[in-house]
C-alpha cells in the first residue's frame, strides 16, 4: 500500500462489510452508462460479442454497435456430403461447427467482409449473397443460365452502398460476356467482349478489388483485345491491358 495511512474516523466499532453495503450510493450494472459498457464489449472477440448481445436489450444495442467486422479472416471448410461446415478462427485457434442448409448444392464464388457470393445452377436466380454470421440472405436478379459462369466477384458488403457484383461468362472461343449488377438492381447489365487471340485461362483468375477497381490476375497469359471498346456498350466498365501477363478490368463505381 506504499505510504498511504489509513485510520478509522471514529472510535466506534464497525461491522465494516455490512456498513459499507448499507451506506454506499451504489451504482449498479443496470444503470451503467453505455460508454462504460462499450469499453468492455469492444474488447470481446466476435463470438463473445454476439453472445453478449443476447444478454439483454441494452447490451444488444451496445454489442452490435461495437462489433468488430474488420477482423482477421476465418477459414470455412465446405464439405460436399454434409450440411456441417467447419469454420476455423486462426487467431483463437478455435473451430466452430455449424449447419447451413441454405448453402445446399452451391458453389462459393467469392467472399468479402463476412459475406459469401454463391451460385446455384440451374436456378432462375442462381446468384445470392449469404452471411454465415447473421444468416442473412440477399438474392440477386434473374440471370441468364445458358452459359457457364467462369468467375464472379463483388466489390464490398452488399449492405453498403456502391456494392457491385461482377460476373464473367464464356460465350464462344472469341467472345466473353461481362455482367454487372448491384444488390438493389432489378436486372443485370450485360456486355459482350471480344477476346484477344492469346486469351486463355488455364487457371481461374484471382480477382482482387482495390479502390473501386476489379483486378483480374491470372498466372497464365491472359489478355483482351481492345478492338471492341466496352465503354461504349456499358457505361461504367472500362478495360485495360497492362501487359501480356495480366489484365485489369476496371469498373468505375
Amino acid at each position, binding site marked *: *500500500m*506504499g*505510504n*498511504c*495511512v*489509513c*485510520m*478509522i*474516523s*471514529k472510535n466506534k466499532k*464497525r461491522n*465494516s*462489510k455490512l*456498513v*459499507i453495503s448499507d*451506506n*454506499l*450510493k*451504489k*451504482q*449498479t*450494472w*443496470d444503470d*451503467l452508462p453505455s460508454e*462504460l459498457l462499450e*469499453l*468492455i*464489449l469492444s*474488447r*470481446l*472477440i*466476435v*463470438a*463473445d460479442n*454476439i*453472445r*453478449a*448481445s*443476447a*444478454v*439483454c*436489450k441494452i*447490451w*444488444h444495442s451496445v454489442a452490435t454497435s461495437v462489433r468488430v467486422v474488420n477482423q482477421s479472416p476465418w477459414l470455412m471448410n465446405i464439405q460436399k456430403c454434409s450440411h456441417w461446415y467447419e*469454420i476455423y478462427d486462426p487467431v483463437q485457434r*478455435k473451430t*466452430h*461447427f*455449424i449447419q447451413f442448409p441454405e448453402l445446399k448444392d452451391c458453389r462459393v464464388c467469392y467472399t468479402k467482409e463476412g459475406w459469401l457470393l454463391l451460385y446455384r445452377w440451374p436456378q432462375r436466380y442462381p446468384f445470392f449473397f449469404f452471411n*454465415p*454470421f*447473421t*444468416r442473412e440472405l440477399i438474392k440477386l436478379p434473374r440471370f441468364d443460365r445458358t452459359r457457364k459462369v467462369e468467375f464472379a466477384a463483388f466489390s464490398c458488403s452488399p449492405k453498403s452502398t456502391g456494392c457491385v457484383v461482377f460476373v464473367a461468362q464464356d460465350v464462344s472461343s472469341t467472345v466473353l460476356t461481362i455482367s454487372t449488377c448491384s444488390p438493389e438492381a432489378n436486372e443485370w447489365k450485360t456486355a459482350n467482349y471480344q477476346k484477344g487471340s492469346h486469351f486463355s485461362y488455364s487457371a481461374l483468375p484471382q480477382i482482387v478489388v482495390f479502390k473501386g477497381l476489379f483486378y483480374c490476375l491470372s498466372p497464365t497469359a491472359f489478355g483482351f483485345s481492345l478492338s471492341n471498346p466496352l465503354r461504349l456498350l456499358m457505361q461504367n466498365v472500362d478495360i485495360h491491358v497492362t501487359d501480356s501477363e495480366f489484365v485489369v478490368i476496371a469498373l468505375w463505381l
Partner: protein
Amino acid sequence: MAEEVSSQMNSLSISETNPSSSATISLVSGDDIVFKVEPTIAKEMETVQSFIDETDGKITTIPLPNISSHDLPYVIEYCEKSIAGKITKEFEAEFVKKLNNEEVKELFLAANYLNIKKLLDFLSQVIADRIANKSVEYVRRYFGIENDFTPEEEAKLREELAWTFTGVDPDDEDEN
C-alpha cells in the same frame, strides 16, 4: 451517517491548517474511513484533481461517497504504481489475481467515478477476459442483469447466431 461524514470532514479541514499535514490529501471513503495519500496521486484521479482545482487547493479532504474502504486501497495501490511508472504485466497479473468478480466490478465503477483512465482500460480488459467464452446465462448472473427479451425474441437470436452458443465454458466454473 451523512452527519458523521461532514463532522469528520470539518475536523479534518481544521487539522489541515497544521503545516505538517498539508502535504497530504485525505480521501474519505463512503464508509468514513480516511486514507492519507501523497498529493501527486491526484494526477491519476481526475475527479480528485478537479475537486482540488475548484477549491484552489484549500481543501485537501475529499469525500468519495461512491467508494468503499474495501475498494479504495486497491485504487490507491494502482495509482501509486502508475505514478512510479511501475505498471508492468506482472504487476497487473498479481493485482487482478487478488480480486474476485465482485471486486473487479466495484473497482471498475470506482475507476469510472474517479476518472482514472488507465485503471478503467485495464479493468475493462479484465472483465472482458472474465466473460470471454462464457454462456449468456453466466454473463447475466455475473452482472445481475435481468433478461428483458421475450422468449420468442431470445429464441430467434439464438437460432440466428447458433454457432456462437456452442463450445462455451461450462457454467459451473463460476467463481462466486
